[in-house]
């Protein structure tokens, strides 16, 4: 690799440029979104927003706690159909199905947010470094990540959760770690390939010519160019992560029932109810999963069609060339 010496101090000393114009420019395509993309973006944002709201305000919104099976000494009925007292009915453990769903939103979002943070902090730097420096480090990482692709995602998460379950007590952390391992290769691969293609661009060459060190180039020139694909990928991965998490929960390896409500676990407890035609214990948690995953998917796809210039459809009648502001 090039022998330019890194100069982190000089780069760090310079004040960061105002974020606002950059943010405005980044958000511009969203404001300009039209047609189907706009519809997807908004319906996705609203659906996701509802669940985020539910998750944050669960203690105030929910009629009962997720593990509550009695009220003032009177036990809840087991597997009671929807009624005024329990709008979505109760399940086999005599807990309120609606409470499970509202508190479940909290669990799902906590796990996915944690997993996203973990996966980004591992995947992004690895991808940047491997892509920029190449060499043996890159080769080995690519091989490892490719081998990880060979294990079906749910299975990988399942094995990780199974192995960590005995040593980490917090089910939320266990589930987040399991999901992290599944998604790290994706961030790594996308970023690495992007960096490899950007590495030889003239502007990077120019930065190298004026004596910028590799880490300065990575941080100031490459990072913001390649990071634009991340929001779309992260949103779509979040949708997928919910499915993985509920799959884990269904198999009994996600968040344990004493630690929080989890939709996949709820459905697993409803397997025995299906034969007797009890539908509310499956339908409502199932609907919650479908709606949240749909919301995140629509949001991600909408973002993709808005940000990705190949797919972008703008209003064709609205072509003001002079509108381009020089910010």
């Amino acid at each position: 690799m090039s022998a330019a010496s890194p100069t982190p101090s000089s780069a760090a000393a310079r004040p960061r440029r105002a974020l606002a114009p950059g943010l405005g420019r980044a958000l511009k395509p969203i404001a300009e979104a039209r047609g189907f993309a706009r519809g997807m973006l908004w319906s996705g944002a609203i659906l996701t927003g509802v669940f985020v709201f539910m998750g944050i305000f669960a203690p105030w919104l929910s009629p009962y706690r997720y593990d509550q099976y009695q009220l003032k000494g009177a036990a809840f009925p087991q597997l009671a159909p929807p009624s005024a007292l329990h709008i979505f009915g109760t399940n086999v453990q005599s807990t309120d199905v609606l409470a499970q769903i509202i508190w479940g939103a909290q669990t799902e979002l906590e796990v996915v947010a944690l997993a996203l943070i973990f996966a980004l902090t591992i995947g992004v730097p690895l991808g940047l470094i491997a892509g920029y420096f190449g060499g043996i480090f890159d080769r080995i990482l690519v091989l490892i990540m490719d081998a990880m692709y060979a294990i079906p995602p749910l299975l990988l998460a399942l094995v990780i959760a199974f192995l960590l379950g005995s040593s980490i007590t917090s089910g939320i952390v266990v589930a987040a770690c399991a999901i992290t391992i599944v998604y790290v290769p994706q961030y790594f691969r996308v970023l690495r390939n992007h960096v490899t293609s950007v590495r030889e661009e003239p502007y990077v060459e120019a930065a190298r010519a004026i004596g910028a060190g590799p880490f300065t180039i990575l941080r100031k020139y490459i990072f913001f160019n390649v990071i634009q694909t991340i929001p779309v990928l992260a949103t779509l991965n979040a949708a997928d992560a919910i499915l993985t998490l509920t799959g884990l929960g269904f198999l009994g390896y996600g968040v344990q029932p004493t630690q929080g409500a989890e939709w996949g676990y709820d459905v697993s407890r409803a397997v025995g109810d299906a034969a007797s035609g009890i539908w509310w214990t499956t339908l409502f948690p199932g609907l919650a999963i479908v709606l949240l995953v749909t919301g995140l998917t629509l949001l991600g796809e909408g973002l993709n069609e808005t940000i990705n210039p190949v797919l972008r459809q703008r209003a064709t009648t609205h072509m003001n060339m002079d509108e381009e502001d020089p910010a």
Partner: protein
Amino acid sequence: MAASGSSLKSYLLVRIAMVIPTILILLTLVFLLMRVAPGNPVTAALGGHAPPAVIKELTHQLGYDRPLYQQFGLYVWHILHGNFGTTITDKRQVTEIILQNGAATLELTVAAMIVALLVGVPIGLLAGRFRDRPVDAVTRLFGVVMYAMPVFVLGLLAQILFGSILNWLPISGQASPLTTALMTTHTNILLMDAVIDGNWPAFWDVFDHLILPATTLGLVFAGVFIRLVRVNVIRTLKDDYIEAARARGIRERAVVYRHAFRNALVPVITVIGLEVALLMGGAVLTETTFNWPGIGHALYIYLENRDYAAVQGIVIVFGLVVVASSLVVDFISALIDPRMRYK
């Protein structure tokens, strides 16, 4: 173009050579995962009640007291000889599990793939042909909802509707107990066994049991095909040769059906291979939902019994199947599409 035959051959050879490190790393990853985990696998499998002497004896017998590098060497050596280990809890060969339970998984996944193609491809073609029209909007929404639907939720809802409310179809297992008892085993694939024996009542019983799990798993995967085929139709309809066909005065219907659709379907083959990994994850959930005696169900039970050796063997087999299917897919697409070979 004169060297196209040899370039295909060299492409295939390179592709095979690339698989070897992948498999080695896969084996190492799985080994490390299972060994780094705290606790003795034998203690985990036997539970806390086994006397220490028994645990010590079995640990020694299974080689868990040797140095790690020796264990690793032995493990790779065994796998090279087709020995994926023996389960700790019930002393079954992993290869035996694969042969017996694998047949049920194969039956389920192949049937599911057929359902996925039958549903996904026509709908995808339709949506791509009528892009941004109501039919497209509805199908895309259907595709998104199907993607968002966990296979176990769809399976349970189907069980409730078709099994317990309408009482049309069986909701659990691969066949009725009576059928299983009366059948002779040839291939472990029950549908084929019934055909070989000409046992039609058994065939229909097995078929009835297959409908709900296969449709459930298939519908979830249909979503993937809908999205893929739709995008491909849109892309091919923009291609130059479509424009050329139109310019030659070929009717629009013929352009769409003969030229665009056919080319839009080529990538489907590639995706079938890529979906194998997802399909297997889905099979674990489907098998658990429908009490289907496949490998996924076996894995679920061995996980519950904390049998590390069984989990390790089954995960490796899953990984190898995924690697093999991506290899096969690359071969097929290299045969179909010469551009692939020069990448």
